[in-house]
C-alpha cells in the first residue's frame, strides 16, 4: 500500500460539469482555495451533451418575456410541485448568468440586432433558450473550463504556481464524505489511474455530480451518471427529495442498438419537427391534456401557422412538456403503431430546407448520418423515450444550496432536488447549473468563513480505506457488470415510464436482493485503471438511488410529471402538497412525507386563479398564498 495522499482545501467541489465549475469559480473568486474533482478528464462532463440551450428570459427575440413568465412556465412544467423559491431565483437570475458567460468569452448565436439569439422550446411561452447551434452545453463547459484556466494563469503570475488556489483532480473517484462532530470535515477517494487513495480535508463540500441515468437500461446519460452524489449525500445524513420523478426524454435514438438512448434534441421539434406513427398519423393532437388545452393547437393547420405567427396561434402539441410527449410515444408504441425497433418517426425533412437543417441542427445531422446512416435532411428519424434526467435530488436550502441537515454540505445542478418539481422543462437545466452552481459556491464560501475546520480522524480514514480494499479481498464473488445489468432490467421493467404498485413492490424486493449480493462483489486484476473495480463503487451508489426511487414511487399514489402510475392515473390535489423525503438509516432507504412549502402571495398572484384551481385544493385557493 502506498502512502496516503493528503490535501487541504477550503472548498471541495465534487463534479466538474456546469454546476461544479460554476461553484468552483464563485468560491475561488471569493478568495478561497478550491479543489475540483472529476471522474473523467477535465472538460468531458455530461453537460457537453446538452444541446438545445439555456433558458433565460432576456427577451431578445420576444420582448414580452420576463422572469415572471419564465417562473410561471417552470411551475407549470413541474406541475406545481417545484420548490417555489428555487424556481423564483432561477427565473430571476438566469439572464445575468448568461451575460456573465458572454463576458468570459462564450459565443452564443446572434439575433439580427446582434444580441444573443433565443429559440423556442417545449413548455416555454416565448423563445427563451440562448444557444450555440445544438452544442450549447459544450460551449458552457468550455467557457467555464477556460475561465478556470484563466484563474490559474493569474495564480501562476502571482504565486508562481498555477495550482496554488484552484486545482482540478481529474479521474478521481470520491467514495465517502467524511463528517466529524456532526459537520463535514472532508472526503475520501482514489485515483482511477493508479488506485492509490486520497484524503481531502475541507470544511465545505459541494456535490455537483449530475444524474442517475445509468441506473436504467435505456438512457441518454454517460457511464458517469451513476448517482454518486445522491448516494454520498444520503450516506452523509442528507435527504433526497422526490426521487420518484425521473424524466424520460421523449426522443432518444432507438436504432441501431449501439446508439439506443442517445438524445435527439428537443430543438428538432422546436425547429418544426413532426411526430408520426407508422400509420402516418400526426398523433400528438390526441394527447393534449386538459390543463394545456388553451395553449396548444388541436389541428394541423393552426400548429403549422404557429411557426410563422406565434402571437395569433397556439403552439404545436409536439412542443408539450417532455413528460406528456414521452407518455404519448409510449402509448403509440404499445398500441402497435410503433416502428419495428419500438419507436415512432420524427421528421424535420419535409418542413425545412436541407441547408437550414445542417446549419441549425449540425450535430443531429452528424449524429444520425455517422451513427445510423440516416440523412435527416431527407428521411425521418426513429425515436423513443430514454431516461434523461432526475428531478429528485438532495434537499437544499434554495438561497445557499446548503444540504438540509448536514453543515458544510452543498449541492447544485441535477443532483439537487426541488427546482424542477415533477418535470423539468428543456433548457432549464443549463440555466439551473449556472444559477445554483454560483449560489452553492457563494453558500460554501460564506459557510467556510464562519466555521472552524475540523480534522479528519484516523478512524474515519481507516474505515474509508477498508471499504476501498474490500472487493479485492473477496475471491470468487459476484461480478459487478452482471449485477449492474440485473439492476437495469429491474428498473427498466418495473420502475420505468409507466408504473404500478405491484410491480414497484416487486422491484423493491429485487433491488434489496441485488444490493445484498453486491456486498460480495469481487474484482479481478489490480487497482491500476481497472473498470471492474470502479464499477463496484458506482454499483453501490446506483442501488441506493434505485431503492430511493422505487420506495418514493410506490408511496406516491397519483400520476404527475415524471411519475406515471397505471393504477392511479390522475393528478391529485392532496399529493401535490407532498414531498417525499428519502433518508438512509445505515442499512436501507426510508421514505417519509413532508409538506411542500406553499406559494407566497406575491408569487401566487402571478397566476390566473383559474389555472391554479386545476392544481390546488379549494382551501389553498381561498387562502391565496402563504403570507
Amino acid at each position, binding site marked *: 500500500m502506498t502512502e496516503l495522499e493528503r490535501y487541504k482545501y477550503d472548498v471541495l467541489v465534487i463534479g466538474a460539469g456546469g454546476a461544479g465549475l460554476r461553484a468552483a469559480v464563485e468560491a475561488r473568486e471569493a478568495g478561497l482555495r478550491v479543489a475540483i474533482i472529476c471522474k473523467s*478528464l477535465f472538460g468531458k462532463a455530461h453537460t457537453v*451533451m446538452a444541446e438545445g440551450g439555456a433558458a433565460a428570459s432576456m427577451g431578445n427575440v420576444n420582448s414580452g418575456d420576463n422572469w415572471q413568465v419564465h417562473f410561471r412556465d417552470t411551475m407549470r412544467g413541474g406541475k406545481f410541485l417545484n420548490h417555489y423559491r428555487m424556481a423564483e431565483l432561477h427565473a430571476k437570475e438566469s439572464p445575468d448568468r448568461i451575460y456573465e458567460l458572454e463576458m468570459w468569452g462564450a459565443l452564443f448565436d446572434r439575433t439580427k440586432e446582434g444580441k444573443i439569439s433565443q429559440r423556442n422550446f417545449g413548455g416555454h411561452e416565448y423563445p427563451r433558450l440562448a444557444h*450555440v447551434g445544438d452544442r450549447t452545453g459544450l460551449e458552457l463547459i468550455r467557457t467555464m473550463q477556460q475561465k478556470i484556466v484563466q484563474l490559474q*494563469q493569474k495564480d501562476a503570475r502571482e504565486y508562481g504556481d498555477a495550482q496554488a488556489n484552484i486545482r482540478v483532480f481529474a479521474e478521481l473517484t470520491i467514495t465517502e464524505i467524511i463528517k466529524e462532530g456532526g459537520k463535514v470535515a472532508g472526503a475520501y477517494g482514489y485515483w482511477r489511474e493508479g488506485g492509490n487513495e486520497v484524503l481531502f480535508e475541507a470544511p465545505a463540500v459541494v456535490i455537483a455530480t449530475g444524474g442517475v441515468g445509468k441506473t436504467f437500461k435505456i438512457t441518454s446519460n454517460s*457511464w458517469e451518471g451513476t448517482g454518486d452524489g445522491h448516494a454520498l449525500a444520503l450516506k452523509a445524513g442528507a435527504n433526497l427529495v422526490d426521487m420518484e420523478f425521473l424524466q424520460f426524454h421523449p426522443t432518444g435514438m432507438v436504432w*441501431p442498438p449501439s446508439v439506443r438512448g442517445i438524445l435527439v434534441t428537443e430543438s428538432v421539434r422546436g425547429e418544426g419537427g413532426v411526430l408520426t406513427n407508422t400509420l402516418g398519423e400526426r398523433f400528438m393532437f390526441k394527447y393534449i391534456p386538459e390543463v394545456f388545452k388553451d395553449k396548444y393547437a388541436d389541428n394541423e393547420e393552426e400548429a403549422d401557422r404557429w411557426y410563422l405567427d406565434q402571437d395569433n396561434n397556439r403552439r404545436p402539441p409536439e412542443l408539450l412538456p417532455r413528460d406528456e410527449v414521452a407518455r404519448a410515444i409510449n402509448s403509440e408504441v404499445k398500441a402497435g403503431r410503433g416502428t419495428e425497433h419500438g419507436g415512432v418517426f420524427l421528421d424535420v425533412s419535409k418542413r425545412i430546407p436541407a441547408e437550414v437543417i445542417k446549419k441549425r441542427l449540425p450535430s443531429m445531422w452528424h449524429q444520425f448520418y455517422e451513427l445510423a446512416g440516416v440523412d435527416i435532411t431527407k428521411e425521418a428519424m426513429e425515436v423513443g423515450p430514454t431516461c434523461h434526467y432526475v428531478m429528485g435530488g438532495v434537499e437544499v436550502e434554495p438561497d445557499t444550496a446548503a444540504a438540509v441537515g448536514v453543515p458544510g454540505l452543498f449541492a447544485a445542478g441535477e443532483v439537487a432536488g426541488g427546482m424542477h418539481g415533477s418535470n423539468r422543462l428543456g433548457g432549464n437545466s443549463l440555466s439551473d447549473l449556472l444559477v445554483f452552481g454560483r449560489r452553492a459556491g457563494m453558500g460554501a464560501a460564506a459557510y467556510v468563513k464562519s466555521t472552524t475546520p475540523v480534522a479528519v480522524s484516523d478512524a474515519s480514514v481507516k474505515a474509508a480505506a477498508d471499504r476501498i480494499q474490500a472487493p479485492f479481498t473477496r475471491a470468487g464473488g459476484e461480478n459487478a457488470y452482471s449485477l449492474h445489468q440485473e439492476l437495469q432490467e429491474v428498473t427498466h421493467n418495473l420502475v420505468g415510464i409507466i408504473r404500478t404498485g405491484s410491480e414497484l413492490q416487486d422491484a423493491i424486493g429485487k433491488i434489496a436482493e441485488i444490493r445484498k449480493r453486491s456486498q460480495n462483489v469481487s474484482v479481478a*486484476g489490480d487497482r491500476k485503471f481497472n*473498470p471492474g473495480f470502479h464499477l463496484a463503487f458506482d454499483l453501490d451508489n446506483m442501488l441506493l438511488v434505485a431503492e430511493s426511487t422505487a420506495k418514493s414511487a410506490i408511496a406516491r399514489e397519483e400520476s404527475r410529471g415524471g411519475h406515471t402510475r397505471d393504477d392511479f392515473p390522475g393528478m391529485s390535489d392532496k399529493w401535490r402538497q407532498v414531498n417525499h423525503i428519502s433518508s438512509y438509516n445505515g442499512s436501507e432507504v426510508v421514505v417519509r412525507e413532508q409538506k411542500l412549502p406553499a406559494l407566497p402571495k406575491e408569487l401566487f398572484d402571478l397566476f390566473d386563479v383559474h389555472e391554479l384551481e386545476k392544481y390546488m385544493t379549494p382551501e389553498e385557493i381561498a387562502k391565496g398564498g402563504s403570507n
Partner: protein
Amino acid sequence: MARKVNLRIWRGDSNSGSLQNVEVDANEGEVVLDVIHRVQATQMGDLAVRWNCKAGKCGSCSMEINGKPRLACMTRMSSFEEGEEITVTPLRAFPVIKDLVTDVSFNYKKALEIPAYEHPADLGPGEARMEQIDVERSQEFRKCIECFLCQDTCHVIRDHEENKKSFAGPRFFIRVAELDMHPLDMLKNRKRTAQEEHGLGMCNITKCCTEVCPEHIRITDNAIIPMKERVVDVKYDPARWLGSKIRRREG
C-alpha cells in the same frame, strides 16, 4: 444477427505490453466501442479504456484503430470487411498508462500556456452586439471536443518527443485562432505569440490534423494557414508593422 469478429487489443502499461487476440460477438449497427465493452464485460474485466458520451461529443474514446487515430464510438463495425482483423492500440503520441488509456496531460499543460480571453473593460453585461457571421468564424473552432486526435496524428510531435516543449499542436492553434477571430477579444499579438512561443512555424501544413478531426473542423485551412499568412504579413511588411503599432490590434 451477431457475427464473430477478431480483435487485437494492445494490453500493457508504461513498462511493457503486447497485442492480444480476442474473439467477440458483434451485432448489427455496433461501433468498435460496443465491441470493446463486450470484451470488458465478458472476457477482460480490467481492460482499461476511456469513454463517456458514446455519441462523438465528448472526445474521450480516442485510440488508434488499424493504425488510424479515431474515436471508437464513431467507428462502425460495418466499416470493416467480413473477417478483417481489427487492431486497437493506444494513442501513439502520448505515454501509455494502461491498455488503451494514455496520459494526455501534455494537452492540459499547453492549454495553460494560451493567454485567456480578455473582455473589453467598458462593455457590461448584455451590452455586447455581434453579427452572426462574425461569431461563426470562432464558433467553428469552438466545436472542438478535445479528443486530441489532431495532436496524436501531428508528425511534429508524434515521433518527436523533443518537439513537445516548444509546440502547442493543432488543438491549441485553433484555440489561438478562435480568440484571435473573437469579435470582442482585446489581447494583442495573438498570432505573433503563436508563431514565437507556441511553435506555429514548425507546422508544415500537411493537413493530417484536419483529416482526423471528428468534428470536421478545417484546422489547417481556416486556422493555421490564415494565421501563418498574417504573421508573415505583419512581420515582413514594414507598413503593416507600423500599422500594428498604432492600431488597437495587429493585422
